[in-house]
């Protein structure tokens, strides 16, 4: 199981880089995870989505798929892909330290 160092803390992640334990996540870690995923700077819009992912995970035990993310967060599909070109739900979940959403839609 790979170990990463984010914000000075050892974090266990899976092979794809998703946190094993979402409890280990702290806000200071997000920008470094984002850079590794190809997002140079986290804007307030990125943060809106990342916080929403954490909120959904806390609420439902799983992150939303892209469609559900757009419907419930109010951020359009187009904007989501502009913010996270390599897959909005997947990348936002990774940056938010939650497991990869498993929806097909």
């Amino acid at each position, binding site marked *: 199981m790979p170990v990463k160092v984010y914000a000075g803390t050892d974090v266990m992640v899976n092979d794809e880089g998703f946190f094993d334990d979402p409890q280990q996540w702290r806000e200071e870690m997000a920008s470094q995870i984002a850079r590794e995923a190809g997002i140079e700077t986290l804007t307030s819009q990125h943060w809106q989505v990342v916080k929403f992912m954490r909120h959904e995970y806390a609420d439902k035990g799983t992150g939303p798929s892209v469609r559900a993310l757009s419907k419930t967060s109010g951020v359009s599909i187009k904007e989501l892909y502009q913010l996270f070109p390599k897959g909005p739900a997947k990348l936002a979940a990774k940056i938010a330290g939650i497991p990869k959403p498993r929806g097909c*839609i």
Partner: protein
Amino acid sequence: MTGEGTAANGTIEKVSIIVSKGSLEGVYPALIMANGARAEGIEANLFFTFFGLDAIHKARHEHIKLATVGNPGLHLATWAGGLPGVSSVMTHYMAHKMGELDIPPIPEFLEMIADTGAGLYACKASVDLFGLTEDDFIDQVKDIITVGEFYGLAAGGQIIFT
């Protein structure tokens, strides 16, 4: 050795999906795969050919039906599947089941897929065959292209025929 259209680390970077059928069960898998590709950060293009063109036809794409005749997977006697209204009822039932799983209706799904940045294209040979024009298609269709142009778009990626 890595296959065509895959990166050195074995991931798929790009897919081109051909939609050749105009039935509900012919269209949805392609849309789900295209949308799923984009969700994984994979570049995706959809190429609609032959009866698959109905999926992007303004007047027809809201009325894509499940094939209730010649569809053994439905476990319905062929004679029953051919009765008037059966296809509509089964399509309606399927739409209801898919709605429960948050799978959008075809028009909304196509709009969503275009918004993900996937390209939607119509096949020129089929467009000519059916006597259609650009005006017959939904706005999300980027272009009517030839087979050669399709291969140009698909170059360096995987091609999926449905």
